[in-house]
Structure formats: structure tokens, C-alpha cells
């Protein structure tokens, strides 16, 4: 199971045309137009190398892991555990024991809320989140607060969609036990000052949980530099298959946490009287793990490393600037989310049409965007919009994609104005 050796990716300039060749779906037509895929924040497309890796796994190596003595099981186990090492490197975790495979960001947050939160929170304690969180970083905390009697606090944002730092500082206090926030907001694209937020939380001894779902495909993650306690992200938004993701946790915290789910693989010995749990990271991986998903995700991580996450971030920043400029030229269009530090997202409303109508017209033009509340209803209320249109970028998007978006929006204006 080798990684790619694509010559496409060598060199110093960012050749988006050659990167596009790595993604077969971009060659398809939609409604008579070339596909313009701008719904990457919802789910990203897969490069050939990920598709091939999955294909090869199922054709050549498929078996259960950590169990069989036979060749296939050993091969599958090796590939699966290689995936852990690739994941460790991808986020610069200190050890393999700190890398737990989960179904995705949502499961990662729920695991922390139920295993860490439920055993550490009590009445009077506070969990702090921000106004820009995805529902998956709100609801798990509401649930655990209800279970433990802790209180959920929400840090406000300003009209650009940026955290209000003074409020954050004021809200982090002696009662604060957990601070959970997005690295990058899915609905706005705001990049939070995560390093400072972690530092602030640590001043009062609170534990930090970072939702990295939108960060993983766009920038280099270094959990040791961030010094965060937990960090979680999904594979499918970073060009890997659906149904797999990573939860990073500091070893001393994970060791002290009870298992979240019981079953096979997470145990050492079982009798009806007593069960001894397995060591990290297996303690948190009950049942047959997401074998193919992890192997596919490792292929995606290797791909991103070969392209270079710093190059991707620089290219996307330029593309975002171009897209912002083009959208601002459209009369009656209002950008939602204008933070100074932003990545990958152009969220907007138009005066002539509801986001849902805009989405239908764009789809007809082959342009895929997300319309709706983006699983962030409190944020929509804050900006007093029912929904937005969200165009979200990935490493394979180019100026032509954004030009197609703008042409589609001009059609919207002609039809509805």
C-alpha cells in the first residue's frame, strides 16, 4: 500500500491544473456544465490515490485487525497501524497512544464530553463554547451539562464573525472546566486564535477541546505547538472516505478517562466478574475499527503532505481574496463572516433572492454550494438571516470555479431582480 509518487506535486509553483487531474470527479459534467464543486466544507472530493488505496485494500488485504494470525489479518493490521503513525505525524502528536480513530469530529467531541466531561464536571462548573460553533460542538456539551448540573457558557462574536477577546477573557474563570471551540468556523471561515485561547484556558486549569473539522484540509495542525488537550477532525472533509476521523488527546488525560463504549478490541481480559481494559489507544476503539477508512485517510494525509499544507494554505488564501473581491462586486450581496483571519469559506446572502432559490439556480449551472443554516442556527440568528449560501474552497478549486459562481449569481439577479 504505497502512497502516491505523483510528479504533479513537485516543484515550487502551485499548479492547480495538475492537482485537479488527481481528482477524477472533477472531470464529470453536471447539468451540461463542467462540475464546479464549492461545497468542500460539507464534504470534499477524493483524489485517485485514496480511491485506489481503498480499492486495493478490499481486493488484496481485507481482513479483521488485531485478531487473526493469518497473512491477510497481519497485512490489514500493519496497514491500519501505519495509518495511526501517518495520523500522528499529520498532527504532530507526541505518541501513537494519543491518536484515537473515531467516526468523525462529532464522535470525537461526544467521546470527550461523555468520557472526560461526565466524570469531571459537577454542579457549579462551567463549559465554555463560542457563538460560532457547529451544532456538534454545542449539543454534546448541552447533554453533559444536563447530566452533571454544569452550566454552558457562550462567548460572543462581533459583526465580522470574530471572537470578542475581552469577553473570552472575562468568561474564562475559576469555574471553567472545559473550553471547546472551532479552529475554523464552518459557516464563516473565521480562524480562531486557538493558541491564545488554549493558553488562556490553561491559566485557570481548564481543559481545551478543539473542533478541527474545517482546519484539517486547509492548514498544518501541530497539536504540541497548540498545547491543546483534545483535537478532533473528520477524514471526509480532508479528501478521505466518510466514516473516519481522528481524536487526539493528551496521554495523561486519556489514561485517566473511562472507556466510552464497551466491546471487542478495547479489552485485555473479560470475565463475568471483571474486565480489564486495553491500553491506549485501543481502550477507546471498541469493536472492529474503521479499517478501510483509516487506510484511506492515511493515503489522503500523505497526499496533502506531498502537496504541502503550507502551499495549500497560501494558494487558498489568494483564491479566497479573489473570490471575496468578485463577490463584493455583485450589487445587493452581503458577505456573512468578514474576519481578518479567514480560511476557505465565502458565506453570503443576496437581497433579491432567498439562499434556497440561489442554490437551485446555481445547481442548474453545475455549481455546487451549500444553502441553509450550516448546522449553526444560533449564528444565523446572530446575523439575522434565515440561512446563507456558502461557497467553500479546497485545494483543487481555481479562479474559473469562482468566475462560474459569479456568472451564476448574475443569472440569479437577472431572474429575480
Amino acid at each position, binding site marked *: 500500500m504505497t502512497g502516491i509518487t505523483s510528479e504533479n506535486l513537485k516543484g515550487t509553483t502551485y499548479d492547480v491544473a495538475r492537482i485537479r487531474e488527481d481528482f477524477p470527479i472533477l472531470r464529470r459534467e*453536471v*447539468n*451540461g456544465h463542467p462540475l464546479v464543486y464549492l461545497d468542500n466544507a460539507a464534504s470534499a472530493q477524493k483524489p485517485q490515490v485514496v480511491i485506489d488505496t481503498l480499492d486495493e485494500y478490499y481486493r488484496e488485504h481485507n481482513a479483521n485487525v488485531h485478531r487473526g494470525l493469518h497473512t491477510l489479518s497481519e497485512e490489514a493490521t500493519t496497514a491500519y497501524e501505519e495509518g495511526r503513525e501517518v495520523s500522528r505525524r499529520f498532527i504532530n502528536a507526541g505518541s501513537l497512544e494519543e491518536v484515537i480513530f473515531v467516526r468523525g469530529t462529532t464522535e470525537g467531541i461526544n467521546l470527550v464530553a461523555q468520557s472526560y466531561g461526565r466524570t469531571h464536571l459537577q454542579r457549579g462548573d462551567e463549559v465554555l463554547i463560542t457563538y460560532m460553533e457547529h451544532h456538534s460542538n454545542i449539543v454534546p456539551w448541552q447533554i453533559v451539562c444536563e447530566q452533571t448540573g454544569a452550566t454552558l457558557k457562550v462567548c460572543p462574536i462581533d459583526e465580522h464573525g470574530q471572537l470578542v477577546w475581552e469577553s473570552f477573557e472575562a468568561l474564562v474563570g475559576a469555574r471553567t472546566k472545559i473550553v471547546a471551540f472551532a479552529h475554523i468556523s464552518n459557516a464563516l471561515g473565521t480562524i480562531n486564535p486557538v493558541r491564545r485561547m488554549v493558553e488562556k484556558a490553561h491559566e485557570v486549569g481548564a481543559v481545551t477541546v478543539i473542533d478541527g473539522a474545517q482546519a484539517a484540509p486547509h492548514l498544518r495542525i501541530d497539536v504540541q505547538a497548540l498545547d491543546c488537550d483534545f483535537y478532533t477532525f473528520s477524514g471526509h472533509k480532508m479528501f478521505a472516505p466518510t466514516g473516519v476521523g481522528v481524536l487526539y488527546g493528551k496521554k495523561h488525560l486519556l489514561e485517566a478517562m473511562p472507556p466510552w463504549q464497551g466491546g471487542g478490541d478495547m479489552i485485555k481480559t473479560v470475565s463475568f466478574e471483571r474486565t480489564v481494559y486495553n491500553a491506549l489507544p485501543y481502550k477507546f476503539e471498541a469493536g472492529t475499527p474503521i479499517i478501510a477508512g483509516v487506510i484511506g485517510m492515511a493515503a489522503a494525509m500523505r497526499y496533502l503532505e506531498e502537496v504541502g499544507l503550507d502551499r495549500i494554505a497560501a494558494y487558498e488564501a489568494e483564491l479566497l481574496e479573489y473570490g471575496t473581491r468578485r463577490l463584493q462586486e455583485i450589487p445587493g450581496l452581503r458577505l456573512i463572516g468578514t474576519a481578518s483571519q479567514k480560511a476557505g469559506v465565502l458565506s453570503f446572502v443576496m437581497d433579491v*433572492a*432567498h*439562499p*434556497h*432559490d440561489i442554490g*437551485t*439556480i446555481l*445547481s*442548474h449551472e*453545475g455549481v455546487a454550494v451549500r*444553502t*441553509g*443554516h450550516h448546522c449553526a*442556527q444560533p449564528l*444565523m440568528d446572530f446575523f439575522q*438571516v*434565515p*440561512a446563507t449560501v456558502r461557497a467553500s474552497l479546497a485545494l483543487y478549486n481555481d479562479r474559473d470555479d469562482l468566475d462560474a459562481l459569479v456568472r451564476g449569481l448574475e*443569472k440569479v439577479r437577472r*431572474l*429575480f431582480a
Partner: protein
Amino acid sequence: MCAGTIEPRHLYRDLILDHGRRPRNLGRLQRPSHRAEGDNPVCGDRLTLFLRLEDEVIREIGLEVRACAICTASASMMSELVKGGAKTEALECASAFKALMAGQEPATHLGDLLSLSAVRQFPSRIKCAELAWHALEAALAGSKSMVTTEEVGS
């Protein structure tokens, strides 16, 4: 299937755009006998329907609507169709409209609402067109609770 092969102009006919821009019977009623709210949490369509019935006849109808053009137009045309008619007729219209969305022949005269028949080619938009009708049924059933597209299915 194949929503995109149909020109958006077939979906957004002039009649629909007109009702979408200037919905009829807009505003809340002073003393409604029935009301219901409709919510499509997926796309953010939201409306409140007010009815004043007398002797099982819809004497007055009022709408508060913050929704897409399809939802707004459907609500507006619905309000014109059922106003002044019997409750039973309104419920027949609701059934007929749902039949239209399901690709069947509506059993009742639907007038301008037939202009929404192209919506059925856009499966993700059918809920938008049906929201006002679910609210109408909920209001007439005496339900004060909110109806959402997610609970009513379809």
C-alpha cells in the same frame, strides 16, 4: 431526478416570481380562530398562518412569511384559493396539492397553483412548496404547535 435538465425559468415562472415578491394576504389577523407555524429547518423557510373561520368557512386568512420564492408563492396562492371557501374544500385542496407534488392528477381545481407543478422535478424543493399546506392542515386540525417539514416527512 434530472432537476437540472429543466430550465430554472420553468420553475420560476412569472406568476411564481410575482407571488414570491408580493405575497397576497400578508399580515397577522387580529383575532384568528386558528393558527399554525411552519418551519423548514433545513433551508430556513418559516411562516405563520392565521385563519378566522365562521360556520366552517374561512372568512379571513393572514400570512407571515420569511421564506424562499417557492414557499412564499405557494403560501400566497394558497391563501387566495382557500379564502372564502369551506374548511372541507380547503382540506381537499391540500390533498390535491400534495397529489400534484407527488406527480399525480389533482382531484380538485387548483388554479394558479398548477404553475408550481415543475417543482416536482426539483425534489429538494418539494418541501418548500408544501410547507404552507402542512401549516393549513395543522391550523384546521386545531393544532397550535409548530409543524416542520422534518416531522411531516414527505
